[in-house]
């Protein structure tokens, strides 16, 4: 089965060793580490899972490539970044990190597709006031008008 990643309604940006993806349909933002991005880039509708595993072994020389690819696909699927469902193994990221450790490989290889959210403190509303719970420099910064111990309070 050839695997195809979604390409429509996505904004993709590469920054340092991360690939940032914004899904315009779901308004979700994701951060892919290099392993997840490697797999995602090869989901071009021309490669099967086995072929991606072989590519990873050849290009990255990683141990347990089959498990890495499987976990990456599972994560990408969860983030709705693939066109269709693909069968993936049930190995958790933690378990994979442990196995990689036993093989002397670094845990950073474990694929990660993390959701990005603007932190609550950034959630100044359209009129420029801060919601409760956000750090505040003065009472007027808070929507509630109360800045207690530098935190906007109800």
């Amino acid at each position, binding site marked *: 089965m050839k695997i195809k990643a979604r390409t429509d309604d996505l*904004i993709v*940006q590469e*920054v340092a060793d*991360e690939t*940032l*993806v*914004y899904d*315009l349909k779901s*308004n979700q*933002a994701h*951060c892919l580490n290099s392993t997840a991005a490697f797999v995602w880039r090869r989901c071009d509708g021309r490669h099967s899972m086995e072929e991606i595993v072989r590519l990873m072994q050849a290009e990255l020389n990683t141990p347990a490539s089959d498990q890495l690819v499987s976990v990456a696909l599972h994560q990408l699927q969860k983030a709705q970044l693939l066109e269709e469902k693909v069968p993936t193994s049930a190995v958790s990221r933690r378990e994979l990190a442990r196995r990689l450790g036993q093989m002397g490989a670094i845990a950073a290889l474990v694929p990660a597709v993390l959701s*990005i*959210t*603007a*932190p609550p*403190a*950034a*959630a*100044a*509303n*359209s*009129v*420029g*006031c*801060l*919601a409760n719970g*956000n*750090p*505040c*420099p*003065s*009472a*007027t*910064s808070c*929507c*509630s*008008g109360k800045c207690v111990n*530098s935190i906007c309070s109800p």
Partner: protein
Amino acid sequence: MNLAPLVRSVILGAWRAEPPPLSLTAEELAAVTPLLRQTHAENLAWWRVRGTPLAETEWGRALADTYRMSVLRNALQARVMVDAVERLREQGIESLVVKGWAVARHYPAPGLRPYGDVDLYVPEGQLEHAQVVAKGLPRDIDVQSTTLYEVYAREFETLAERAERYEVEGSVIRVLGPEDHLRLLCLHLLDHGAWRPLWLCDIAAAMEQRRPGFEWERVLYGSPRVADWVLCALCLAHVLLDVSIADTPAEARVQTLPRWLVPTVLRHWELGNAFSTRHHFGVLLRRHWRQPPRLVEALRLRWPDPIRASMFCRAPFDGSSRLPYQFRTALASAPAIAGQFRSALLESPAADAGQTGRADLEREPGSGAQ
């Protein structure tokens, strides 16, 4: 804790690919980040703390996430901008991109300089048509005539002849030439009271990216008073952000900078977005309608600062008292303030209190984060 110096130390050199080392404690970062957030300068903090132990703190990780979102937001805004430019072009209207993307390109990493607005200059004679086209676009596009604001005014054709072309998302866009853009950034900064540290960084970045052949005459053309305002803005970048003004016309001006100028900017930096714009004041009024002490505080924040008052009165930036200008500006704002009081009386005071931010790309990085 006096926060303005902290703001200054965090943004210092943050527009450069290699900013100077940052000396900041985790507590100081926690104290200053909310202020930077309110003024949309938090990505500059991230740029300074990345690769340091501060990046691993709670605030450091939050800054990294905000930066990632900003990268995506800017990418989306770039699409919006290109779409608008192309739609206008289809109608035979050539536009010039000002601020926004044109400023962000001076920064060393995508997303470092967030922008929420798309501002386009169009020829005076095509303004109405352009506004109709812009209204048909899915997002807010601000099309303006180049003569809309008196202090920035310059014929479109004059600006267009020095415009630079860039390819973005497969389309060609035109931005103001470096001299015209620097002039605009300086006047825009002062017109808004210089309350956002980011705006001064924009000037710093534009200053440091001048190329050989940069024409100062073009920056300082026309009214000597307006030219002097521009010089004062450049001096602010020098005094507060250590931008070199050696061998520039601003070099001599820095010796005679009025005493009220730098403290006014630092006071704004201390306040963050509590600095009261007309819009913000209206919100505060409705929010604090039944709390007289808060109303007094809001009114106090509404009092015109020396910079905006000077700009409003088209006054010289000199050592004379700013009070007459501040009174004049306050007087001129009185009808609007009275109107806002009337509106506040009629509206529910709770109307705005429940609003919270939206954490998706649809949320502008701030109203007016030009």
